């Protein structure tokens, strides 16, 4: 897909939360979302993601890293689901062996993608969640 063919989802007014402790990944994931017109915020670990929701913020999509200090992605996903958060959560991690993936999915993910995240993978996530319909 060329740059010119990228969908602009700004009209959908989607919001996203990037949960990742790595500054490089934060920057890239935010840029990916912004290129598709998705407003987004970033936090550095699972606890900050939970705190954001406790303070009343809510998001259509959460991109959740697995390995983070203080509270990892598995713990944060479980906690968010316990809180009744129904946002779509996509796990994004370099850990891809079946056991780790299964554990992460069972925590409450809606989807899982292996890093590095790309436009194609992000569109696949959005398509799976019916946020984006390819024409």
């Amino acid at each position: 897909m060329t740059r010119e063919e990228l969908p602009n989802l700004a009209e959908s007014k989607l919001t996203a939360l990037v949960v990742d402790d790595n500054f490089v990944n934060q920057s890239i994931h935010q840029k990916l979302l912004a290129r598709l017109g998705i407003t987004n915020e970033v936090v550095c670990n699972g606890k900050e993601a939970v705190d954001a929701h406790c303070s009343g913020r809510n998001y259509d999509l959460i991109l959740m890293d697995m390995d983070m200090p203080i509270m990892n992605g598995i713990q944060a996903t479980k906690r968010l689901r316990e809180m009744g958060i129904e946002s779509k959560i996509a796990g994004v991690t370099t850990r891809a062996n079946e056991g780790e993936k299964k554990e992460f999915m069972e925590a409450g993910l809606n989807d899982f993608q292996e890093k590095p995240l790309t436009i194609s993978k992000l569109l696949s996530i959005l398509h799976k969640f019916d946020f984006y319909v390819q024409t």
Partner: protein
Amino acid sequence: MQRQVALIKQSLFDQGYLDEQFMELEELQDDANPNFVEEVSALYFKDSARLINNIDQALERGSFDFNRLDSYMHQFKGSSTSIGASKVKAECTKFREYCRAGNAEGCLRTFHQLKKEHSTLRKKLEHYFQLARQAGPKETARRPK
């Protein structure tokens, strides 16, 4: 000059320093962020310098905490993968294998090579970005299939 910039970038791919992920990042550049890749690269080198320092200190202490070293290297590999730093990523993978095997000598040897690759990539990218800025807005070069 744009041709020179394109040739330099092509050589980075041909010599295995960069992989397709770098191209993915370039595709994200737009008028709002025309220097996005350079900014992300700067972030990467700043972050990875910190990790290198942490690992250096851990190795200098002499006691090999392989779990801690593996944890540092997991982060390093993650960042390297995200910007397409192919050779650095490969050395990260080797280092982690040596950690899992409890092979201290292998870790030291690989870490030495990793620092070399990291330093080489840094210099090459700095040169590339400097020329790219001088050349002005560039079109994205395509890798030959």
